[in-house]
Each structure stands twice: as C-alpha cells, then as structure tokens.
C-alpha cells in the first residue's frame, strides 16, 4: 500500500492550557472521501485548523504527500495543495463573488485563473449569474457554494471541508454533497469532510471516524458507522444511549 496523502499521527493541540485534541491519528488516501463526525466542541474544527497550520500542533506530526506540514506556516501549507473551506463559510461579504473567487488563488497565483473560474461556474452555475453581486447578499446555500468554489480555485489535491451543511436546508445540503461526490468521482479529488450531519456525510464517505472530546473513538467504513449502535444513538437520533 502506498503512503497516504494526508497522514496525521498523535496530534495534540492546545488553546492556552485547554487541550482540544488528545492524540489524533488519521489517514486520508488519494482519491478518497473521508469523514469525521462529532458533536459541538469535539475538536473537529480544531483539527482542520491544525492541518492548515492556523493552530499549531503541540505534539504529533502531520505529513502531506510526505512533507511534514506541522512545522510550516499556513500560506506555505496551502501552496502544497491543501484547500480549506472553513466552518461558517467565511466568504468576504463586501466583496463580489468574482473577487472572492479571485482570492481563492492567493496562494498559487493567477496563472490558471480563467480556466479554473470556468470550471467553478460550470459546477455552480448560480455563481456565474451572481458573479458581480456582493457575496454577503447571497443566500446561505449560495455562500456555501462560493466557499467551496473559492477553495477549489486553489487547485487543491486535498479539499478540507468544515461543516458544509451548517445552517442549510436539507435539500441544499443534499445538493452540496452530490456535488462533492461528483467532484470525487470525475476529478479524483480527495476530500476530508468534517460534519455534524452524520447521515449525509457517512453515506458519502468511504471511511468515517467519530471524534469525541478530542479523541477518535470509532473508525470504519461509512456503512459500518451508519449501522453502528453507538453512532446511531448519538448522531442519528436512534434512541437513548
């Protein structure tokens, strides 16, 4: 077996004295969709931020395609081919949709911009219609599409998605997940997805992990986890624990 694209080993992250991650081990292989589910405060977003280098891991290592990325600053990590669509979308509200997409190329430069922006518009046609509108005036679903589109503008080999279904109607969330599936299938994009919407996320993913209080407590294929009694009880509303 080849070495995974993203290799996380024993990562511990602190906020001051509060430990948010207690030694997380995780692999994401090229071409896979990997999901991590967990409740509020489990450390999901912290893990994302740690991968991107916005928070630094105190202990442990993160390798991306063999490069140790836990030691380098965020802008260099992104340049290696990781893009993050952050929690809560975090688009630039007063700038236009088009400018937002342009900022997606901040790390890699504008060389492929025209080509890539067309791909994004093909993926999310609504963005093409809204391109000169302020991003803050978009609906929640459109903003999420923009956030994903902006992340894709960085030509990632690994796309990190932090709760893309946050605050979206189920139908829109389904649409977003379908797009992810399509991206994975047609372009071989590797996706690491963090979600609270366990049902959708686990159906999509080849592999899933459950994060509780900064530790991975369960791992398995998406289907295994979907039928696992603990997961059912805690995340899928399947009765008391």
């Amino acid at each position: 077996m080849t070495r995974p694209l993203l290799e996380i080993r024993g990562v511990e992250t602190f906020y001051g004295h509060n430990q948010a991650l207690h030694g997380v081990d995780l692999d994401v292989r090229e071409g896979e969709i990997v999901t991590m589910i967990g409740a509020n405060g489990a450390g999901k977003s912290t893990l994302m931020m740690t991968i991107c280098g916005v928070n630094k891991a105190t202990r442990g290592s993160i390798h991306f395609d063999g490069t140790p990325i836990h030691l380098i600053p965020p802008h260099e990590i992104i340049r290696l081919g990781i893009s993050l669509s952050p929690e809560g979308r975090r688009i630039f509200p007063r700038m236009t949709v088009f400018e937002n997409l342009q900022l997606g190329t901040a790390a890699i430069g504008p060389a492929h911009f025209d080509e890539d922006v067309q791909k994004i518009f093909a993926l999310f046609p609504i963005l093409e219609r809204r391109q000169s509108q302020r991003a803050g005036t978009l609906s929640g679903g459109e903003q999420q599409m923009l956030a994903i589109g902006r992340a894709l503008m960085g030509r990632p080999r690994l796309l990190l998605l932090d709760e893309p279904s946050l605050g979206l109607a189920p139908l829109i969330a389904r649409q977003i997940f379908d797009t992810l599936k399509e991206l994975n299938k047609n372009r071989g994009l590797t996706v690491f997805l963090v979600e609270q919407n366990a049902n959708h996320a686990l159906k999509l993913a080849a592999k899933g992990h459950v994060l509780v209080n900064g530790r991975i407590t369960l791992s398995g294929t998406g289907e295994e986890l979907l039928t696992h009694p603990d997961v059912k009880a805690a995340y899928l509303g399947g009765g008391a624990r």
Partner: protein
Amino acid sequence: MAQPQNNHAQNLGQALPSMIKRSLIVLAIASIIFAPTLLLRLQVSKIENTLFIQYRWVFFAIGCALILVWRLIYEFRAWQRANVPLKASSRPQSQESRFAPYVGPVLLIAAILLPFMPFTDRYILDISILIVTYVMLGWGLQIVVGLAGLLDLGYVAFYAVGAYSYALLAEHFGFGFWICLPLAGVFAATWGVILGFPVLRLRGDYLAIVTLAFGEIIRVVLLNWRDFTGGSNGLSNIPRPSFFGIPFSQGPDGFAATFGLEYSSLQRMGFLYFLILALALLTFYISSRLRKLPMGRAWEALREDEIACRSLGLNTINTKLSAFAIGAMFGGFAGSFFAAKQAFISPESFNFMESATILAIVVLGGMSSQIGVVFSSIAMVGGIEALRQLQFLKAIFGPDFDPSSLRLLFFGLAMVIVMLWRPRGFVSSRVPTVFFREKKSVGSSMISQGRG
C-alpha cells in the same frame, strides 16, 4: 389616490394638538439643557474682582427656537410619512451615480486651475495647501484603515517622522528637499513596520489603543530628546524646497529672474501647492492601483475576514506589514512636505488631535471612497476655516463673539449629522475592483471546447 384632500387636512388637524404637545415637551427638555450651557455664564468682574452671572437671553432664545422649529418639522414629516402614501416611482433610483464619473476629473481640473484664478490670494492658497495635505494624509490613512481594516489612531506619528527626517537630514547633512523626500518615506515606512510587528495579533479596539500609544510615544520622544530634536523649541530654519535647484528668492538666480517673471512671494506658494497636489495625486494613483493588484485585494480580504484569509493561504503577516508600511510612507511624504512648507516644526504640530482629524476625514468620507476623502477634507479643514469668516454673527451675538470658538461644536454637529444620515460616510459604495467582462462569450458551454 382616491382619498379627498380635506381628509388629510382633517387628519392633520386632529394630529396637530398632540404634535404641538410633544414639541413643547422637547422644548422644555431643551431649555433645561440650555439653561446652564447657553443662558448662564460665569464672568469675572475685573474692577470689583468678583464673580457674577451673565444672562445670555439671545443665545438661549435662539437655541430654543431652533429646537422647536426642528421638532415641528420632524413631527410634520413623521405625520406625512404615516399618512401620505409615497408613490413608488417618485424617488429616482440614484442621482449621484449619473454624475459620479465626472466628479473626479472636475475636481482635478478645479484643483489645477485654482492658483491661476483672479480671486486666489495668499490666504486661499494657504488654505488650499492645507486641504490638499489633509487629502493626501487621508488617502494614506485610508490604505491602513479603509482597505486593510486596521484602526490606526497614531497616524500622525508617521507624519512627524517624515517632518523630522527632512528637518534633521537638512540640518546635519545639508540634504535638499528632493533627496529627503524619498528618505522620509523610507524612514516612515520603517517605523510603520516597527509599529506593525508588535500589533500583528491585535485587532479592533486593542490595535487602536496600541497605535494611539505609539503616536504619543513618538511625540513624547520628540519633546524630550532635546539634543537631537530641539525638544519643545522645535527645529527652525528648515530649508525651503527649490524648483529643481532654482530657489524662490529675489536675487538674480531666483525663480522669478530665471523665468523672466516679476518676483512675488505667491510663486513659492503656488509651487508648494502644486508640489503637494502632485504628492497627493501620486498617493491617489498608487493606492488606487494597489487596490486592483493582489496586494490590495489581500488587504481588503484581511479587513473582511482574517481567518478566511489564512485558510486561503494569504500571508497575513506580510499583508498587514505592507499596509502599515505603505500607509506610513505616504504619511512620511506629507510630513516632509509639511516641514518644508512651515520651515519650522515642533512636537506641538503632531498631537493626537491631528490623528483624530485625519481619521475623521477618512471615516466621514467613506472608508473605501477616495473621492469621499476629498469632500470630507474640504468640509473639515475648509469648513472650520470658513467659520472664521462668519463675522456677521457679531451683529447678533455682540462684538465679543468669536465664531471660530464654536468650531468644535460644529465639528461635533457635523459628525452627528453625517453619522445619522450617511452612516457609512459621504460616499459609501464600494466599487468592485474587477469585473468579468466577457460574460456571454465564456459561458459554461465553452469549457468543453477548451475556451476560457
């Protein structure tokens, strides 16, 4: 509208008593406030060496009358809004957008022609130089505050660094203005980076406090480092800028003699005016170019959302430092111009009030509108000067009345009014820096054909 006219009149008649009642309540409150502020004044009798109270009924009456009239108008408008339906089409969409493209060029032409106008005298030219200086400072600060969203309350520090750079370099090394100008910019930019480093992790209020302190530190150092900066005595005899080597003097080598003109001290003023105008336009040009470049867009993105910037791989450290450095550089340019124009500088000129004025210019003008800064500079600097001209008010308020003593009152009033009606500044719209021009030819259907 099918309703008969007299129906409105009847409604107004019915509403009138309560409207008047409310107005009178407001008047009563106003008179309570005005009694100690406008009506009573403690005076010292120099002859008897005692204190006595002077009653200023005229002030009091005018204040109360203004409040009453304002409230009645307000009540009437409120009634009107509630009772007279507005026609949907009666309000044009936006008048200003039609004229917007012409405002800049017209202002520029007016600015260039100003010194040649027959009514332009020394006084007008002096005020104009001051206004343009503030426009330049406003544009410089706008890079930091408006674009990068870093609230800087100590901008005057860079102005001071620029001024002292020129003064000291000229004094110790005999450098001329044109050598010192870029050096002053470099020094100020260096100080911008020095300020930038410790505040990299700060935002909002905390950043404002540190920058405020920075401004004060620079001023206090200038005040106390007597051997180097002359302390509160300041530095004098700063050489005036020459016209590319030709001084503005009366002798045979002077500007007037060289160009066969009659000597006039206005020539130097005119030159200074064009000098600061050119510097301001340079600031304008560079900052509007930067806005369209990746660096400027990174500044704007930083203002919008720092976390998002990091997750996109923007180097936030470089972005912040460059904003501080470039903003400071223009402050330094303006400072060295200031020193050259005044020929005398002291720490007094670089107090917090200056920072506040420049910041007010940026905020009132609209954080991201460069034309707005021009208008607000004219209003803030020119408007305060214009107050001095209101000598006819002496006829009403007596010969002791000094209109310019009210300038802070008007300053505050203008602020309140602008923030009520235009909370985002005079010119509030943000113009996108890029447009997608070929909307039609590059639809999604083109991708499969390899176009894009």
